[in-house]
Every structure is written in structure tokens, then in C-alpha cells.
């Protein structure tokens, strides 16, 4: 791919970046929800059984998502300094990579199995 010497900002690029931020927000909310439920004894019955390995994987994934969020925030601010990326909402398109819709419990297990060293397989 030849680089074109242009710094033109397009709506397409902005939409893509904002969508990525929203998906990271969505995934972060999900992971934090699972980790919080893990810590709260009374809510553990909402989860499927997770192994220690899977819990550590989720914690690593949480760190990776925070890093991705920071990088995306810096990118969006560089794109347009008047935008506040923290105001961007939440999307669940990230779930599509993990198969068909299913119950929360099944999805949590599927997600925990897919996490490997902070990345999603």
C-alpha cells in the first residue's frame, strides 16, 4: 500500500474510531461486571463456574482493554480535540466474534475460554 501524503480527516475514519471506542466500552463493562460479580459472594450464582486460570485471564483482558481504551482516547483527541471520547456510549458488536446469541451464563463461559493471555482467540 502506497502512503498518500494526506492528513485529511474523513467521517468514515471518525465513525470507525468511535465504533471501536464504543465496543471497548462495551467489553470493559462486561468484563468488569463479571469480575465484580466474582468478588461479590452473593452474586456468584449468576456465573458459571470459572477456574482460577480463567479468572486471571479475565483480569489480564481487563488490563489490555484499559490500554486499548487509553490509546483510542488519545487517537480520537488527536483526530478532533473538541471531542470527548469518554462521552461515547457502549456497543456490543464485539460479541459477534464469539458466536451466536446465547444466555448470559453460556456467554460468560465462552468468553472466559476465549481469553488467552489478555487477547481474545
Amino acid at each position: 500500500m502506497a502512503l498518500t501524503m494526506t492528513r485529511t480527516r474523513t467521517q468514515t475514519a471518525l465513525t470507525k474510531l468511535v465504533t471501536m471506542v464504543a465496543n471497548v466500552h462495551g467489553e470493559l463493562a462486561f468484563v468488569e461486571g463479571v469480575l465484580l460479580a466474582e468478588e461479590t459472594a452473593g452474586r456468584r450464582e449468576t456465573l458459571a463456574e470459572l477456574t482460577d486460570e480463567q479468572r486471571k485471564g479475565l483480569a489480564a483482558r481487563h488490563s489490555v482493554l484499559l490500554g486499548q481504551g487509553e490509546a483510542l482516547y488519545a487517537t480520537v483527541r488527536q483526530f478532533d480535540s473538541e471531542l470527548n471520547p469518554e462521552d461515547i456510549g457502549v456497543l456490543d458488536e464485539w460479541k459477534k466474534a464469539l458466536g451466536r446469541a446465547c444466555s448470559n451464563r453460556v456467554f460468560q463461559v465462552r468468553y472466559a475460554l476465549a481469553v488467552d493471555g489478555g487477547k481474545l482467540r
Partner: protein
Amino acid sequence: MSRTNTPPTEKWLLNELAAARGELAEIERELGMAQAAAARLEVCLRRQQSLCQSFEKVLEMTIGEAHRAWTAQVGAHRPYGGRGSLRQWLRETIQAEYPRSLDSVTLLDRAIPVFGLVFVSKADRKRYCDNTFRRQLASLLEQGFVERLPLAGRGAVRTGWRWKAPADLNSVRVQAESAEAA
């Protein structure tokens, strides 16, 4: 009036010492400025490094590791000192001249020393004026900051660019005065 008699060697030494101290003070002052500039550059460096890392991370999320073979380094020049600086300067210059108007040739003549613009030929200058300079003026016109007026004079009709002040009694008065003067 008494006259002191300083031996020439001492006189020379005293004078040289004073000059050397003056040089030292100047060097210390320049060193202080250079250190302050270095500290500022250090902050800019860390900020740019962080920005580069953010871009690399986001590129990795979008196109994966393959981007590492593509990315290059370019001297992203900022000929006007930053994004939007030329347009901002045009706005301020035209606003300062209100209620007078200025044509694009006069504006370009004023912009050349401000931004250090260099043209290799008349054609180069014309190309710049038509493609870049007038484009910025057209943007200001679209945004409603300036208005276009015909300039009176012999020969071809020239266009003047004038600040479009928000409608209020004061501006109406100024316009009336300038119309009377013309």
C-alpha cells in the same frame, strides 16, 4: 579634580575581568534559556512518544501486525505553525482592517513575511494564491466571517475581502461613515 594613575597592567586586567564576567553572565543566561527549551522539548518528546504508541496500538487493533511493514516516517511540515493558523491569521487581519477591505494580492503580500513563504516563480505564487490562499478566503466566506466586495479602480474588477461584523447599530454607523467617505 584629582587624577588616578593606574598602572597599565592593572588597568588592562581590570577591564578584561569585567569583560570576561559580562561574557560569563551572557553564557549563563543563554544556558538557562537552552535548558528551559530542552525541558519543553523533553515534554513534547514524551507526548509524541505516547501518541505514537497510541496510534500503533489502534493500528494493531484495526489491521494487525502487518502495519509495521507499511509505516514510514514523514516530516509533517507545519508551514503555518499549526492546523488552522493561516485561516486564523486571515480572519484577524481582515477584522483588523474593518471597515476597509483588502484584496487577495495585498493579503498574500502581508502573509509572505509572517509565514516565511517562498515562491520559486510567478506561476508558483499564482498557483499558491489560487489553490491555497483563496481557498481559505472562500472558507471564511462560507462560514460568514467575511464578505466579498468589488474594489473601485481602473482596469479589471478586483475583489476585496471585508470583515462581516454581526449586525448591530455600531456596525451600521461605521458602514454609513465608510460609504460617505467613499
